[in-house]
């Protein structure tokens, strides 16, 4: 029955709100998949399953047609068949969203009667999913999916949808998910999850959004085309020769006057940098030689000298006409409400959150299961509406954990395509700390290294370290001394095994607050000492938490 799930792509923490749906109670997620397969009242494109409630909801929608929202304990399963944008064979099973013909003419809606009165309709071909104005092949046409066109002169035309078996790249191949695994000189590619023969930092588990599968050619870093590390020890990496698709690249909605997110959709005409320098034309190699040319980055709108973001930068930029300044960001306005400008310095890191964490402004960017957070301005791998523009008071900086929408704790979208969002790895302030798990250092502290490790275990009854000042910085009186304070209860004689030889902080009476001493201040007979807990002195775990300032 697990085979039933193979036809689906899973996303944890996601759901789709839809009026049309069917709700079932099932025992397993596989049963829910079977319900979706057997749905008769609509074409089931996805389902979501709530394991705790054993609730199964089948839907006609998917992430291509409807907005995906986040919801705890809900897992969305989308049928691969309906996410695929290519055809197998003549494409009778094509269920993609292409809606233009091969000549670029917009398709007429299948239900429409104008400009053409169709004889193939959703009613006559009920299983063909003739929805909206998407290209389909309900009649087995040899030319593949087609549609009635909106051009009164042309009744219908085929759409020239890319073949699934055709290995080709659109644009710079950032979305290439094919299986070519040989570089252009013929070297076999090194697996991404291997560090041999070449060490590298493109680690699949750390970069799930880059789809670094097997040893397939990929483009995770803004190269002009997919590439791979090679198995030849003398050739670290090389591009792969994958042909460009003959079909049209995906259409974008260009942003002409302002930019959202990283500004990769900006196609306006601003051509001046933030410091007022004129931009160099992308076609030109003067004054700066460069590789960001229009032919290498065909889908990035590298026209004239307009500011663009062809390579996953933070904002649109350009090479400048000033020979002294190679490139600079441009001052393209941000679309919508202007969020608070990002401070150059992140505020002091908070180690915990108060209440529901809406006020949390710390630096955690990792989820409870260790996943990296997606940038709030990014729509990859998860499209969403929780942007700094829509939540200007949410402090949605970088990829830091926040709670902009009043959930019960700080959270973030994850960079793992299969997990939409998760709560973050931060505790609520005042929550019980985890019990110590690594006793090794404590043992070492108590025995071998007690001289060099100035810390206490438990209440510090065994503390024999050198600290001899109190919490207020007052020097301790020697335990054997009677000035300035007279005392009789705790002397080297009364407690010979408690280390009262000098004036160092000790805990001869098992004070729950830890070691203490009589002080040399006449007005303060005794005072507690500040001895750190040995548990807090494990390597790499500073007792005083750093700011973790992320400077720009």
């Amino acid at each position, binding site marked *: 029955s697990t085979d039933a799930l193979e036809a689906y792509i899973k996303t944890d923490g996601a759901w789709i709100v839809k009026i049309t749906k069917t709700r079932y109670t099932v025992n397993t997620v596989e049963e829910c998949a079977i319900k979706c397969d057997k749905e008769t009242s609509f074409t089931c494109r996805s389902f979501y399953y709530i394991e705790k409630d054993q609730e199964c909801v089948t839907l006609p929608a998917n992430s291509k047609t409807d907005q995906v929202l986040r919801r705890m304990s809900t897992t969305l399963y989308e049928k691969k068949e309906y996410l695929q944008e290519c055809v197998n064979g003549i494409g009778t099973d094509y269920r993609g969203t292409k809606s233009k013909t091969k000549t670029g003419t917009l398709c007429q809606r299948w239900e429409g009667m104008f400009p053409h009165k169709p004889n193939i309709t959703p009613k006559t071909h009920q299983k063909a999913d003739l929805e909206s104005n998407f290209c389909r092949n309900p009649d087995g046409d040899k030319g593949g999916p087609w549609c009635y066109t909106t051009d009164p002169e042309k009744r219908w035309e085929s759409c020239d949808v890319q073949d699934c078996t055709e290995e080709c790249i659109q644009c710079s191949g950032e979305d290439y998910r094919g299986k070519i695994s040989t570089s252009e000189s013929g070297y076999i590619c090194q697996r991404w999850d291997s560090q041999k023969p070449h060490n590298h930092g493109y680690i699949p588990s750390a970069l799930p959004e880059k789809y670094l599968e097997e040893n397939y050619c990929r483009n995770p870093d803004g190269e002009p085309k997919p590439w791979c590390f090679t198995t030849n020890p003398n050739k670290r990496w090389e591009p792969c020769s994958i042909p460009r698709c003959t079909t049209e690249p995906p259409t974008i909605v260009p942003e002409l006057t302002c930019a959202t997110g990283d500004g990769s959709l900006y196609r306006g005409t601003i051509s001046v940098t933030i410091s007022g320098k004129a931009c160099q034309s992308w076609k030109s190699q003067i004054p700066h030689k460069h590789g960001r040319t229009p032919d290498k980055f065909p889908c990035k709108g590298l026209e004239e000298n307009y500011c663009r973001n062809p390579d996953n930068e933070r904002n649109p930029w350009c090479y400048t006409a000033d020979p002294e300044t190679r490139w600079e960001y441009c001052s393209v306005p941000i679309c919508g409400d202007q969020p608070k400008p990002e401070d150059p310095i992140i505020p002091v890191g908070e180690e915990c959150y108060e209440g529901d964490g809406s006020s949390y402004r710390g630096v955690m960017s990792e989820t409870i299961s260790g996943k990296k957070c997606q940038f709030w301005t990014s729509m990859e791998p998860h499209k969403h509406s929780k942007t700094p523009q829509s939540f200007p008071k949410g402090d949605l900086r970088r990829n830091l954990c926040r709670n902009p929408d009043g959930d019960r704790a700080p959270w973030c979208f994850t960079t793992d395509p299969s997990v939409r969002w998760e709560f973050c790895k931060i505790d609520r302030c005042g929550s019980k700390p985890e019990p110590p798990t690594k006793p090794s250092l404590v043992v070492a502290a108590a025995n071998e*290294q007690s001289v060099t490790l100035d810390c206490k275990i438990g209440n510090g009854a065994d503390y024999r370290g050198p600290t001899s000042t109190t919490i207020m910085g007052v020097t301790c009186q020697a335990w054997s001394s009677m000035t300035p304070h007279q005392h009789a209860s705790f002397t080297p004689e009364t407690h010979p095994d408690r280390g009262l030889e000098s004036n160092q902080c000790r805990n001869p009476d098992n004070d729950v607050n830890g070691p203490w001493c009589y002080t040399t201040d006449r007005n303060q007979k005794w005072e507690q000492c500040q001895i750190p807990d040995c548990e807090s002195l494990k390597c790499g775990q500073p007792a005083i938490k750093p700011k973790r300032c992320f400077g720009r």
Partner: protein
Amino acid sequence: IVGGCISKPHSWPWQISLRTSAGKIHFCGGTLIDAQWVLTAAHCLEKSKRPSAYKIFLGIHSERAYELSKQERDVSKIVMGPPGTDIALLKLDRPAIINDKVSPVCLPEKDYVVASGTECYVTGWGETQGTGGDGILKETGFPVIENKICNRASYLNGRVKDHEMCAGNIEGGTDSCQGDSGGPLVCYSQNKFVLQGVTSWGLGCANAMKPGVYVRVSKFIDWIEKSMKEN
């Protein structure tokens, strides 16, 4: 450190200041990796191979080192890294007292490679190039950049070796600089800071497309362990 910010006092308790024994003048950073061992850059030790030429200050926040928490140690042994590498070990004449202001950092697993884009932090008392905080321990954070990108012509043009790593912001503005050499580049992972780099070199400081270069510590784990054991 250019850009970045002044650190919280003693929040990077493994940071040490390497000084001349004569004038006790700070000239390089270093990292406490064990109660008696400090890791630093080999180029910091170019002027003298004599351990007595150096002093190590631990537990300080200001370069002037007036804090009561200061621990001062002499160097009893210098172990230079393999030829052609910018790494060295210093043995303290006696172990540091490990407390809340002085404690070692964790070392990475052998041959561990930090994923591209991981956010890491550098600290030091080096040049600030007018960005403030002179004389106080500064910190800054930025992402690790894969050597493939770092070796592009417009970046460091093939100068970065396998046993080195790059980190920085592509647009510049923040970086380690002269005087930070030998200090730590640490990355936070699984609830602890791990020493992944030793501040080594750069083309200027904080220039756009010229990230800093750090010795990749994970490549030297065997050497570190062997050197500490033998010495």
